[in-house]
């Protein structure tokens, strides 16, 4: 028989970004909040203190901060007709673990969302007509507007101490910022970071090509900063150990630098680590969550009763918990009915290395996760898609995130992979190589979805989540369009050559090489319970005292990096729980 803990008001599954946000906001509302984290406790000191953490072997080669796949993973396939195989090693995406979650090893790119993306189906239909949407593409509106979210984007940026330059304050264009930016209520909390060489070359080249470069918003602080919770953030020193690493300088925003120091002092908040939640428990009516069941560090099953359950784990685990807890109707790709697992998306990423002659120093070992110059000229619907015949867009950037030799030294096409000629090539190229990328949206399709694998189980005996996903013609043609833009920019930057990965027609999702951790969808938000798992307040349509956070609520893969939107949605949900739900618990949207 399971051990039964004392009931709490709110149990939160996962103590990463969204868990920390919900925990502090609901604790401030006076609730007794308990967070259950499957991984270990960790903090800047001692875990990411200098010099221990700036170790490419431990962090990049051996994935020190990432999910241990021997405990749990996913299975993958391109098509429903295929047998799915396990994701046995870290490759295309990097789920985190432990307190802080993926908010520790992320880069820090901190964008919002383009307003039309939140009403994509309506927008595409209005501008291009219904027939512009290809067969099998499952466009949906998100059931929420950019204006509703704006205060919460602002809030999350001010919590993070985000560096950037506004391009549009209250509808008035602000010189020096991104001219395509959606209106923001005020300037960024901190000015942009200094530009490293790749970004300088990228900005110059794109300006010459007639585009509009801007400083990418970065949750890597450009100056000392104190956030609204009273947490102090130190300035980034461009150490070059950012993505894959915890921050040595309290500069890259994470739950540890921005929220947890304040949260830990609250008497009505507590957390447990090594608590792996396997089930959301529901009452016999199936409409009320009664708490969760977790496996503790000793392998014992523990029941945690709670008045409200918040799923705040990483995407994969949130979706799997909905499926294994049998909450909401599982999606069936044959009929297109059901909501849990629906609209599983990723992003499309093209990445090319730009090689310069020996007089051009890039010094790729210097950098910061979010620093860079970007253009939005081809983002979202900032350009006329009519002549191109695809839906979607992307942000193109010249970032310099920090690159060491264990992470791989890119070489021009045709260079050998070993031997004396390889050695000559790495010596000639290492200091003179930059990287530019196009990060593009990924539309939802009827045949791309998540469900439970019938064969493979994890260390807890639970079925693995199964991913069915491949690139579709619309996205591949978009990718080729962006590939051409990237090559033209590389040339304008003065690169002597370029090599890398442009995804083109005929290519399939390659799960081996790292792309990004921006997987999304599976428990979409929306206005219609037939096509969404949660309403606009991220409240389960089926179980009103269950809230589901994370990029799994996206209805398609947006162009920008997801963390800004994930954080804003968490603040939005928290504000509505506090101001509306707590006063009158029950469904916040009537159908």
């Amino acid at each position, binding site marked *: 028989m399971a051990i039964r803990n004392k009931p709490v008001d709110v149990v939160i599954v996962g103590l990463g970004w969204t868990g920390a946000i919900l925990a502090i906001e609901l604790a401030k509302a006076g609730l007794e909040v308990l967070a259950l984290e499957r991984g270990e406790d960790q903090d800047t*000191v*001692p875990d990411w*203190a*200098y*010099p*221990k953490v*700036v*170790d*490419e*072997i431990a962090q990049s*080669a*051996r*994935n020190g901060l990432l999910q*241990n*796949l*021997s405990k749990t*993973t996913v299975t*993958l396939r*391109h098509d429903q007709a295929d*047998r799915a*195989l*396990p*994701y*046995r*090693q870290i490759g295309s995406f990097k789920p985190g673990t432990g307190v802080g979650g993926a908010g520790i090893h992320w880069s820090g790119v901190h964008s919002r969302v383009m307003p039309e993306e939140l009403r994509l189906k309506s927008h595409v239909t209005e501008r291009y007509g219904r027939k512009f949407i290809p067969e099998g593409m499952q466009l949906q509106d998100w059931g929420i507007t950019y204006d509703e979210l704006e205060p919460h984007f602002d809030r999350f940026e001010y919590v993070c101490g985000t560096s950037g330059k506004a391009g549009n304050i209250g509808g008035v264009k602000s010189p020096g910022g991104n001219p395509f930016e959606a209106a923001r209520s005020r300037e960024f909390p901190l000015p942009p970071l200094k530009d*490293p*060489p790749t970004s*300088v070359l990228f900005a110059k080249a794109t300006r010459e090509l007639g585009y509009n470069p801007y400083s990418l918003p970065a949750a890597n602080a450009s100056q000392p900063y*104190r956030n609204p*919770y*009273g*947490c*102090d953030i*130190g*300035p*980034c*020193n*461009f*150490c*070059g150990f950012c993505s894959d690493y915890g921050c*040595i300088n*309290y*500069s890259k925003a994470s739950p540890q630098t921005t929220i947890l120091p*304040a949260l*830990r*002092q609250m008497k009505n908040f507590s957390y447990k680590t090594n608590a792996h939640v396997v089930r959301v428990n529901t009452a016999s009516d199936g409409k009320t969550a009664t708490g969760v069941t977790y496996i503790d560090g000793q392998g014992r099953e523990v029941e945690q009763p709670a008045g409200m359950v918040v799923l705040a784990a990483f995407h994969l685990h949130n979706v799997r918990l909905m499926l294994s807890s049998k909450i909401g109707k599982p999606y069936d790709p044959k009929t297109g009915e059901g909501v849990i697992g629906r609209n599983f998306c990723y992003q499309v990423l093209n990445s090319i290395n730009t090689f310069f002659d020996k007089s051009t*120093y*890039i*010094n790729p*070992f*210097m950098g910061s996760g979010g620093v860079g110059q970007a253009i939005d000229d081809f983002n979202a619907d900032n350009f006329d898609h009519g002549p191109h015949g695809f839906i979607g867009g992307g942000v193109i950037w010249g970032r310099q995130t920090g690159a060491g*030799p264990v992470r791989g030294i890119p070489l021009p096409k045709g260079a050998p992979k*070993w031997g*004396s000629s390889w*050695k000559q090539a*790495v*010596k000639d190229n*290492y*200091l003179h190589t930059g990287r530019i990328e196009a990060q593009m949206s990924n539309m939802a399709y009827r045949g791309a979805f998540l469900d439970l694998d019938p064969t493979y189980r994890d260390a807890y005996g639970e079925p693995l989540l199964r991913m069915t996903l491949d690139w579709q013609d619309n996205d591949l043609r978009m990718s080729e369009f962006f590939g051409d833009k990237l090559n033209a920019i590389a040339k304008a930057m003065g690169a002597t050559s370029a090599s890398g990965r442009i995804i083109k027609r005929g290519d399939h999702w390659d799960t*081996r090489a790292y792309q990004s951790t921006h997987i999304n969808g599976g428990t979409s938000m929306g206005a219609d319970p037939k096509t969404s798992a949660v309403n606009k307040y991220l409240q389960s349509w089926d179980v009103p005292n269950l809230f589901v956070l994370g990029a799994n609520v996206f209805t398609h893969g947006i162009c920008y990096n997801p963390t800004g939107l994930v954080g804003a949605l968490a603040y939005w949900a928290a504000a509505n729980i506090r101001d509306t739900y707590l006063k009158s618990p029950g469904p916040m949207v009537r159908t």
Partner: protein
Amino acid sequence: MSKDTDRRAFLKGSVLLPALGAAACSPPATHQDDLAASAPAAATPAAADYKPAFFTPAEWAFVQAACARLIPNDANGPGALELGVPQFIDRQMGTPYGAAAAWYMQGPFFEGKPEFGYQSQLTPKQQYRLGIRAIDAWCAKTHGKVLADLDAKTQDDVLKQVEAGKVKSDDLPLDVFFTAFLLKNVMEGYFGDPMYGGNRDMAAWKMIGHPGARADFLEWVDKPAAYPYGPVDLHGRQA
């Protein structure tokens, strides 16, 4: 703590000073225990008299020969053998990595499209054991000697054929062993911190201009010029 680490601990500490003054939410006081835990693992750089713990004498000869060809000693600098990379690989076999401790290793195992990555139940240790045996057996059959006893040109030729998938074994795909284990680990050892047993005296970092663990470029990031300082390792040694 060496003088040099002291200095850097102080420099790093300086950015934290404002944090200590925060009222509502200063980070918890750092204890001596925490600082001790933030030290890197013990440094055991490449040793001249190293005795392998995992590899047999025959395997050790193979690993040394392969290292010498994959990253040769030449005019650009010392090679993988000189920098201790065989020691790095031998020691890695004794870590959780050698046993694939963080990989999903439950069956059933099926071959799949290459896009789905590694689908074998062989751990890195088993890859080396079987891979070396198969390549040496092929060398013996084809050339009458194991890899380590062949001349450099023939060794290069064998390794190229293995890399291209032309050398077959019933036990495992040798091109995967070559690319995903042998070559990958050689690169890790050559460029990793010297405390892991390779990159002796940071010579690989010096060759390419990588400053190792310096990790502090605020004054340099906007200067597109040669960075003037040599590398520092995780234990504060400079080269």
